[in-house]
């Protein structure tokens, strides 16, 4: 089932991330391969429907060589072509490098143990080597504008009278260049245009950013480039233009297939608009379209919601996100519920929708690879996976968050960075300083480990021993959690698993992860404080 080419076994993927993010890595070969591969500047091509064209161009290679996400395709129909525009040469460049992340392996696969062994071997070699790091990162671009405020959204967004797009574009480009230089990142593995409503931006802006990224670092042709699209602002022609600009994955904010609910949410589209956009998107980006569906809305009932999900299953692509509504302070829904003009969502019903929904998706062949994310045919979001694996990422645009070590400036400590929130101020700063970074918070080693724990457990694979060791080579998962009575109680309850593969939630545990973390995080903090003195010195 797995299409392993020479030197591109699944273990490559595991081993790819099996290196401490800041340790020197021998990767010259990979770099060379990547550098020598001709990179088609996809965003320069215009007027061409991107999906099919790229697909045909990459099909052969992808079939013959390692799929970058081998496990993703496990459930896919036999012989079905991977849709990602995969370039074999570039995949082989997947040598260990900081910021790279292990992609999710399937559960209970025969090769897992062997892969682990090989990965360990690779890691030892990596650790022994000395050489300049070649960091990778994901890149997030924030488009802060919307046509209308949605009643549930507390994101950093603005409803402008008019956007001086050229100025915004220029600032996005400048900031991307500055941060890439600062980070020393040499390879951008995914780009995500979020917002706001990035589908309101013109395709030329998207193209300009991608162009700049490729020039400042390197944006391989197979990098995932996602755009969040709003059904009303994304007619077919626009979608095609985005495709031509370099976007190769769409995330559609469909939210609901019930017009009354859409109205409650303050969305500007109807369920018909949504389905139409979805169909167009699938035509243009086959296998690369995701839809969001919300659950747990006020007054929403389980039965009707499941019918929505079933309808969606009949017409969706290979990726679905199910998001329970969170009432956020400062949103209209929050205010209405506070005032009592709207009934508060029932958490019991939401829990039931979630459980029924994830079961339904499982039966439909979707893998729940994260708390709210489901994919079949291996169509996971690489970009988001980076977040959950604590890979490096750069945040560009007003209020964008990033997490990377400014290696370009010689600093190897990872920082949490936040850009200036308000677009006008952000632009002023970018024009003055080349970037609008408002805060830089260095992450201690413990803080990074806490994030590895909290984010990693959101995924179905959880935290593998290898993954953990990249970040903390000395204190193993067993050392941290093995002896704790509280953890043992969670294991005995069957909501948490700790075994030869690593630490992860069970099906039931994933739904209550935040409760588990309240036991696990203090345990990690204690273990960290109680490290042997030699370990402390070694730090």
């Amino acid at each position, binding site marked *: 089932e797995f299409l392993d080419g020479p030197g591109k076994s699944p273990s490559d993927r595991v081993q790819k991330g099996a290196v401490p993010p800041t340790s020197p890595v021998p990767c010259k070969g990979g770099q060379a391969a990547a550098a020598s591969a001709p990179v088609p500047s996809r965003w320069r091509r215009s007027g061409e429907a991107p999906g099919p064209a790229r697909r045909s161009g990459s099909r052969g290679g992808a079939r013959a060589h390692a799929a970058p996400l081998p496990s993703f395709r496990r459930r896919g129909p036999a012989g079905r072509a991977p849709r990602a525009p995969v370039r074999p040469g570039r995949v082989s460049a997947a040598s260990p490098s900081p910021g790279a992340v292990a992609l999710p392996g399937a559960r209970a696969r025969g090769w897992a143990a062997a892969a682990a062994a090989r990965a360990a071997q690779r890691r030892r070699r990596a650790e022994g080597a000395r050489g300049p790091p070649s960091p990778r990162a994901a890149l997030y671009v924030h488009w802060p504008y919307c046509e209308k405020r949605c009643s549930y959204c507390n994101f950093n967004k603005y409803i402008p009278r008019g956007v001086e797009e050229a100025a915004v574009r220029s600032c996005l480009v400048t900031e991307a260049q500055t941060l890439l230089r600062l980070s020393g990142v040499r390879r951008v593995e995914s780009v995500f245009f979020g917002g706001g409503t990035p589908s309101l931006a013109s395709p030329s802006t998207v193209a300009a950013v991608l162009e700049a990224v490729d020039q400042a670092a390197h944006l391989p042709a197979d990098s995932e480039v996602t755009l969040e699209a709003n059904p009303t602002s994304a007619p077919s022609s626009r979608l095609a233009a985005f495709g031509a600009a370099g976007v190769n994955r769409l995330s559609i904010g469909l939210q609901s297939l019930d017009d009354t609910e859409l109205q409650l949410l303050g969305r500007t589209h109807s369920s018909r608009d949504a389905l139409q956009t979805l169909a167009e998107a699938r035509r243009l980006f086959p296998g690369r379209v995701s839809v969001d569906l919300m659950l747990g809305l006020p007054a929403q009932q389980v039965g009707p919601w499941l019918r929505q999900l079933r309808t969606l299953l009949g017409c969706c692509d290979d990726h679905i996100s199910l998001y329970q509504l969170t009432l956020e302070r400062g949103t209209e829904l929050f205010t209405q519920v506070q005032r009592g003009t709207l009934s508060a969502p029932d958490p019991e019903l939401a*829990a039931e929708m979630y459980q029924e929904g994830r079961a339904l998706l499982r039966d439909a062949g979707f893998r729940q690879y994260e708390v709210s994310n489901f994919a079949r045919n291996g169509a996971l979001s690489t970009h988001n996976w980076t977040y959950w694996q604590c890979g490096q990422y750069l945040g560009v645009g007003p209020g964008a968050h990033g997490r990377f070590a400014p290696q370009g400036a010689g600093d190897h400590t990872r920082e949490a960075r936040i850009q200036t929130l308000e677009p006008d101020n952000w632009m002023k700063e970018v024009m003055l300083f080349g970037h609008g970074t408002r805060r830089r918070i260095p992450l201690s080693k413990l803080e990074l480990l*806490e994030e590895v724990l909290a984010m990693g457990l959101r995924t179905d694979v959880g935290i593998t021993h290898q993954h953990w060791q990249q970040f903390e080579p000395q204190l193993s998962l067993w050392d941290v959690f093995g002896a704790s009575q509280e953890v043992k109680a969670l294991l005995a309850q069957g909501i948490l698993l700790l075994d030869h593969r690593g630490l992860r939630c069970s099906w039931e545990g994933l739904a209550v992860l935040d409760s588990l973390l309240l036991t696990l995080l203090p345990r990690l903090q204690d273990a960290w404080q109680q490290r042997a003195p030699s370990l402390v010195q070694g730090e």
Partner: protein
Amino acid sequence: MWTPAGRGRWHGRALRLWAAATARRGPPESGPAPTRAAAAAAGTPRSPDGPADRKEKIDMSRFSVENTRNFSIIAHVDHGKSTLADRLLELTGAIDKTKNNKQVLDKLQVERERGITVKAQTASLFYNCEGKQYLLNLIDTPGHVDFSYEVSRSLSACQGVLLVVDANEGIQAQTVANFFLAFEAQLSVIPVINKIDLKNADPERVEKQIEKVFDIPRNECIKISAKLGTNVERVLQAVIERIPPPKVHRKNSLKALVFDSTFDQYRGVIANVALFDGMVSKGDKIVSAHTKKTYEVNEVGVLNPNEQPTHKLYAGQVGYLIAGMKDVTEAQIGDTLYLHKQPVEPLPGFKSAKPMVFAGMYPIDQSEYNNLKSAVEKLTINDSSVTVHRDSSLALGAGWRLGFLGLLHMEVFNQRLEQEYNASVILTTPTVPYKAVLSSAKLIKEYREKEITIINPAQFPDKSKVTEYLEPVVLGTIITPDEYIGKVMMLCQARRAVQKNMMYIDQNRVMLKYLFPLNEIVVDFYDSLKSLSSGYASFDYEDAGYQTAELVKMDILLNGNIVEELVTIVHKDKAHSVGKVICERLKDSLPRQLFEIAIQAAIGSKIIARETVKAYRKNVLAKCYGGDITRKMKLLKRQAEGKKKLRKIGNIEVPKDAFIKVLRTQSDK
């Protein structure tokens, strides 16, 4: 008693209940104006304003007993007691008329909620009437039945009272309670109908009420507007005409009643005294009849209303005395002072403070324990009636079990802690002192008494050890417009009250008397009464001893483990409903956990109520991407930190505020 540590006597007095020393009635310390007025009135030579002037001492021997009147003002809240006092002081020149003497007291919320009267001020007024110099002593009384003992002591220094009634609102519950206190003390009662200037004033109706309820002829009522000063002079005349002079003897040896005391940081205890016999001056050696301790008098004087030193105080007069007492417990209210080696029969009626309401008090954060401790000490130095026992709770940490005279007393104490000492505290549900009569000689020997008082539910003796349990009862007076009678009676019945009396005080107002178990009114009775009567019913109560009661100890269990903090003593008939309420409240305040929690109320092994907290089915942030991580980590760490502070009962983690929610607002419906 309630006194701030401030030295300004006048406003100190005015604010004694009210803690916050922000409202200033006049200038701090004695301003020149009152002194001058006093000096002029007393016929002493006038001298220029200035500190030296204040050292001039008044010769109190000029005021004969025949020309002395001692009286109090009693009233329901907001009926105008303080405004009238202001006018009387102005009329007699004790305070300057040009000053803005409007009642500007900084009232605590609790006052409005509970309907308590602002304390008047003790002041000696010098008044000229038909060529005679009169000494009119206006004696302070606390305005609430929580302080009825203090009121009775203050009244025992008087021969008459002004009973102030609002011309609009008419007689209220507290008017009745106050009247009977005065009546029992055989004092002359001068009814004063106030606020006749109000648009809806109906003084005739109030006259009729007074006639009906108090049996005082209508023509004895004085109709005034204290606000405008209308007819206030007539009040002073009535005091002279209708109130008899005190029956005392200067020739006898000193017999003085302590009717109040305050604590001054620099001078120690300042005792307010009324002389029944003899005289006292600086240098005298005096003895407390209660403690038998001897003191040397440093200073005597009158309150005018500020402290005004005098050479002497004579029988029939009222003033203050400083004698090197270091602690207010050395000058307890009701105590008798006499001259060293000249003992007298102590005045009757002395009692030590008897707390009627007990509650646990804990710092919100244990790190605040020492600050709170010092605040409690500072407050109790002025209030000997608060009893303090150290206590500790597994959930709430180290704290105290405090005893108060009543609910109001407790709330005032708590508000003073918060306002004056900026201390945030957890106050547990108040309980009342139950009693148990022990059944065997062996037990009596063990407990050293036959009847034991239980102030902490954890110490409740098992039924096998006792012949009977007793609970404190009070006689409550409710005055309500008759349209609310039905609801009021239902409320009283639900509180296990027994009706003792009912009468119409006019065409549409009814006075009801009920015997209430104290614990039934201790939490939310007053609020319920006010809300069901749209605020029109008034309530007051007085101590009525103990009655037998079928009491049981109720445990609260979480998955089978007893929660010690929530052990409750409850009447058998109320156990089910109280248990249900506690279980429901716990259910609402216990966070879900990864397993189901059974909350049960039990008497012995019998479960009488149950609620279930279901296990968490979903608790995970839906969206967690690049921009959400920082916030999520912060939240998780804060929650994890909070979890460390949780009290573990079995494997259940209970946040402190879950206890607080149950303990604080638990109401027995």
